[in-house]
């Protein structure tokens, strides 16, 4: 199942990057495009191994940069940092809770663009920034937060569809069964 989960996460990352580039509706409507990679990273870091986290950060970041004017590889680092932080604290996180998923998605989707822009400025690039960038940041954070619980639901469904269901254990034990039958009555024996 592990490799299947990794493949599903990477496939979803590929589709997410494509959709972000192809669909302009949200950008035209609210002035910002939502990034789904941080939401996927939250899911991957809480549900998969460190290799999946590293693969998602590398491939997701490179795919994103290949369709963008970003320098190649700049998006990898923020995704990796988010993935490593969440993966190292996964025992303490209630991953089944929708609220926890939303909050983690919010934090990841807010941090990823911030780290990327800081990295761009550090490299001497000149991204388009202004007061309206705060609005875009808010939309990206909220959009990513809303997408995170959906990610969990989607992947849980995929998991259920491709794996055998675990049988529920019963308390029935044949060796401790009380056998009731019409045996010989002690008064008549």
């Amino acid at each position: 199942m592990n490799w299947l989960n990794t493949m599903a996460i990477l496939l979803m990352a590929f589709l997410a990057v494509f959709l972000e580039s192809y669909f302009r509706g949200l950008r035209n409507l609210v002035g910002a495009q939502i990034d789904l990679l941080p939401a996927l990273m939250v899911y991957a870091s809480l549900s998969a191994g460190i290799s999946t986290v590293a693969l998602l950060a590398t491939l997701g970041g490179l795919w994103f940069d290949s369709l963008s004017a970003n320098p190649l590889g700049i998006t990898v680092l923020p995704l990796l940092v988010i993935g490593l932080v969440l993966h190292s604290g996964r025992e303490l996180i209630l991953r089944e809770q929708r609220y926890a998923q939303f909050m983690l998605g919010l934090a990841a989707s807010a941090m990823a663009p911030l780290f990327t822009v800081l990295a761009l400025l550090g490299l001497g690039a000149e991204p388009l920034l202004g007061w309206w960038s705060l609005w875009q940041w808010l939309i990206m954070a909220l959009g990513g937060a809303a997408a995170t619980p959906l990610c969990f639901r989607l992947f849980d469904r995929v998991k259920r569809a491709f794996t055998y269901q675990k049988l529920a254990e019963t308390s029935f034990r044949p060796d401790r069964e009380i056998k009731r039958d019409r045996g010989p009555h002690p008064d008549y024996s």
Partner: protein
Amino acid sequence: MLKRQYSIATGLVLLIVLVLLNLPEQPAARIKLALGGLFLPLFGMAGSVQHLAQQVGNSVVPRSTLLTQLDQLRKENEELRQKLMQAQDAFRENGQLRQALGWQRRVPWALQPARVIGQDPANWWRTMLIDVGSRDRIRPNMPVLTAEGLVGRIDKVGPDRSSVVMIGDPNCRFSAQVQDARDKSVVAKGIISPTASTLDRLLVDLIFVPGGSLLKPGQSVMTGGDSMIFPKGIIIGHIVDVRTNDYGLNLEARVKLAVNLNRLELVWVLLQ
């Protein structure tokens, strides 16, 4: 054991990032184009689905509407033919006069149509992808335009797709001139630059206009022809408002772009 896994994964990813960020421009661009090429089947498929949906939509349009549209298009075609005839006459006359004065003859534009297949997924750049590349004689820095005006310039070129830097991107600054609405004389010159004050993607700034220039809202802003990239006379937009800068030494104007960059489907690349 887990710590070791962490170190190996982090080290490998960091190594890849460091190598990629330190690559020279050309190999990095090639890798970028190769990785972006993975998305081409998806872009193609999405385009086909959109085309199919359009065809289905067209098939349910009533015949009477189609006939009305056909009639309108016929009239428009007739008008355009007449205008073309006049323009050809003017062009011929212009050529003769230029020859008489010993000026260089103007070369008619060669245009390559292109479909917009995607936009930059990052919010801090204004670039887009088009479905023509080096196989269609596209080269970096060629101007991209529509019938309404200038869109931007070609940035990176792959065999069958290219990226376009649109007006309003920090990497698309160029000289422009303001024309008077009445007599078409040049009022002032300045630099088109991204605006730092609004979410509207259709507004840019015209900066470094000399103080005292007679800028007014509504005046047309055109390419100046001073840059090596854009030929003179392509419309960029219209002035919305003007403000003074640097204690009146310079003027700045906000320019509303003539082309709606949010709804671009088809553009033309000016082959030079």
